[in-house]
C-alpha cells in the first residue's frame, strides 16, 4: 500500500476474448510518490496500452490498477496526460488550450469563472516556464511542432496533477527540439515534483529523465527488467555522453534486444 501507483499483474486484451490481441499480460509496475519512472520496450510491446490502462481510458481484463490508494475504474482527475501528438484544440488559443483542464476538473471547474485572473496567471507562468511567453494568444497552427508539444505539457500540468502520464510526448519531434524539451521537462519535474510515468522508445531520453527505467518484453507486454538511474540532477546534455550514462543505455539496449529476440 505504500506505493502511489501499483499496477499488479494486469492483462489487457483488444477485441474479443479468444480472437482479440493480447497487448499486456502479467504486467506489474510500482511507482513511489514523486518518482520519475520511464518505460521502454520494443515497438508494439504495449507501452501505450500500459498508459491507457494506467489512466483508466481502457479497462483491464485482469489484475488491478491502483493510483493513490484507489482502484482505477475510470479516468482520474488527479492525472495529467500528454500524448505523442500535441492534440491541441485548433479553435482555441494556446492560453485557452492550456486552461482546458480547468474547465473539466473539480474544484477548478467551479472556481474558474470567479477566479479567472488567478488561473490565467498560473497558465501564463507555466507557459513562461516552457519558453512560450508571448505566444498565449496564438492558435496551435501558428506554433511549431515543438512549441505545440510544450503547450501540451503545460495543459497536462495546469491542474497540478499528482500523476503525470507522458505517452511518447517528444517522439514526433526532431532531435534538437527533443533534447531541448528534456531540459524543460526536467525543470518542470524538479519544480513541481509530480509523480511521472514516461513511455518512450528513446533510451537516452529515458535515462536522462528518469529515476528508474523499466524494460518491457515484446507483445504481450510485461516488465522484464528495471534499472535505477542514480545520476545526479540536474542532468545535462553533455552528461548523456559520459561513460556512466552510456553504460546504462547500453545495458538497457541489451535487455531490449533480448526482449525482441524472445518474441
Amino acid at each position, binding site marked *: 500500500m505504500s506505493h502511489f501507483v501499483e499496477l499488479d499483474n494486469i492483462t489487457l486484451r483488444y477485441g474479443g476474448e479468444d480472437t482479440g490481441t493480447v497487448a499486456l499480460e502479467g504486467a506489474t509496475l510500482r511507482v513511489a510518490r514523486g518518482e520519475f519512472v520511464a518505460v521502454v520496450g520494443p515497438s508494439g510491446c504495449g507501452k501505450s496500452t500500459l498508459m491507457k490502462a494506467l489512466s483508466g481510458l481502457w479497462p483491464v481484463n485482469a489484475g488491478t490498477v491502483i493510483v493513490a490508494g484507489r482502484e482505477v475504474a475510470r*479516468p482520474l482527475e488527479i492525472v495529467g*496526460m500528454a500524448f505523442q501528438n500535441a492534440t491541441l*484544440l485548433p479553435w482555441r488559443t494556446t492560453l485557452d488550450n492550456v486552461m482546458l483542464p480547468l*474547465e473539466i476538473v473539480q474544484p477548478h471547474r467551479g472556481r474558474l469563472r470567479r477566479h479567472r485572473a488567478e488561473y490565467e496567471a498560473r497558465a501564463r507562468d507555466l507557459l513562461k516556464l516552457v519558453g512560450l511567453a508571448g505566444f498565449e494568444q496564438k492558435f496551435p*497552427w501558428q506554433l511549431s511542432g515543438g512549441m505545440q508539444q510544450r503547450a501540451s505539457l503545460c495543459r497536462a500540468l495546469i*491542474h497540478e496533477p499528482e500523476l503525470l502520464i507522458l505517452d511518447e510526448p517528444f517522439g514526433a519531434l526532431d532531435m534538437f527540439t527533443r533534447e531541448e524539451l528534456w531540459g524543460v521537462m526536467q525543470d518542470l519535474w524538479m519544480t513541481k515534483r509530480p509523480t511521472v510515468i514516461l513511455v518512450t522508445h528513446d533510451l537516452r531520453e529515458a535515462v536522462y529523465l528518469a529515476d528508474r527505467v523499466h524494460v518491457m518484453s515484446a507483445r504481450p507486454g510485461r516488465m522484464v527488467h528495471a534499472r535505477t538511474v542514480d545520476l545526479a540532477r540536474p542532468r545535462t546534455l553533455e552528461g548523456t555522453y559520459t561513460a556512466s550514462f552510456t553504460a546504462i543505455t547500453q545495458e538497457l539496449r541489451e535487455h531490449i534486444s533480448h526482449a525482441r529476440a524472445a518474441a
Partner: protein
Amino acid sequence: MTDTTVARSAASARPAAAPTRKPWLASRRNLERALPWLVVIGLFLVWEVGVRAFSVPQFVLPAPSVIFESMWKWRVPILDNAWQTLFTTAVGFGIAIVFGLVTGVLIGSSSLIYNGLYPVLIGFNSIPKVAVVPILVIWFGIGTVPAIITAFLISFFPILVNVATGIATVEPELRDVLRALGARRRDIILKVGLPRAMPYFFASLKVAITVAFVGSIIAETVASNKGIGHLMMVASSRFDVPLVFAGLLVTALMGVAMYIVANIVERRMTGWATRGMDGGMSAPQG
C-alpha cells in the same frame, strides 16, 4: 454526400499568402473580385445578342432587357411577393437550423440514436417534398404555413447530416484528452464535438439556405396566394413570360444574398478552419 466533402476541403489548410503586396498580386485580387460580375454581365450580353440574332419569340425566351423592363414595371408586386418568400424561407430555415443542430448532435454523439434514426431520416429525405405539399395544405390550409414547413423539411437534412458527421468524426485523440481528465460525455460534446462540427455546420448552411428557397417556392407555386412562386404561376397563366423570368431572377438574387450572409457568418465563427484562405468565397454548391 457533396456537402461533407466541401466541408473537408474548406477545413484543409492552405499556405498563407505572402504579406508583402506585389502589384500583380493586387491586380489579380481585383480581377478575382470583379470576375463574378463580369461573368454575369457577359452571360446577359450573350443572352441578349442570341435572342435578338435568332429573333426568339418573347413567350419562349425573353431578352434580359425585356425582363429588366418587366421587373421595373412590376416592382411593387415583385417586392411585396419577394418579401413574403424571403420571410417564409427565413422562418423555415431558422427552424431547420435548430432542428438540424439538435438532432445532428444527438445522432452524431450516440451510435444507438444513429442506428435507430438514420434509416428513417434517409427514407424521409428521399420523399419529393412537392408531394408533401398537398398534405400540408389539407392540414394547414393554403398560405404561409405550408411554405414555411416545406422550406424547413427540405433544408434540415443537409444541416443534420453535416453536424452529425462533424461530431461523429472527432479524432479519438482529442476525445482522449478530455476523457483522461475524467470529463463527462456532455463536456466532451460541448468542448470538442460542437466546435469541431462548426465548419461542417456552416458549410451545410450554405447548401441549406439555397434549397430552403426551393422548398418555399415549390409550396407557393402549388398552394399559396402570395410569394414569388405564386407570382410566377399567375404570370405564366397570363403568358407573361418576362415576368416569370423576372421572378426567377429575383429568387436567384435572394439566394445569393442569403448565401453571402451565411458565408460571412461562417468566416466570423470558424476562422480557425479556413486559415490562410483569403479572398473569394469557397465553391458554391447546392
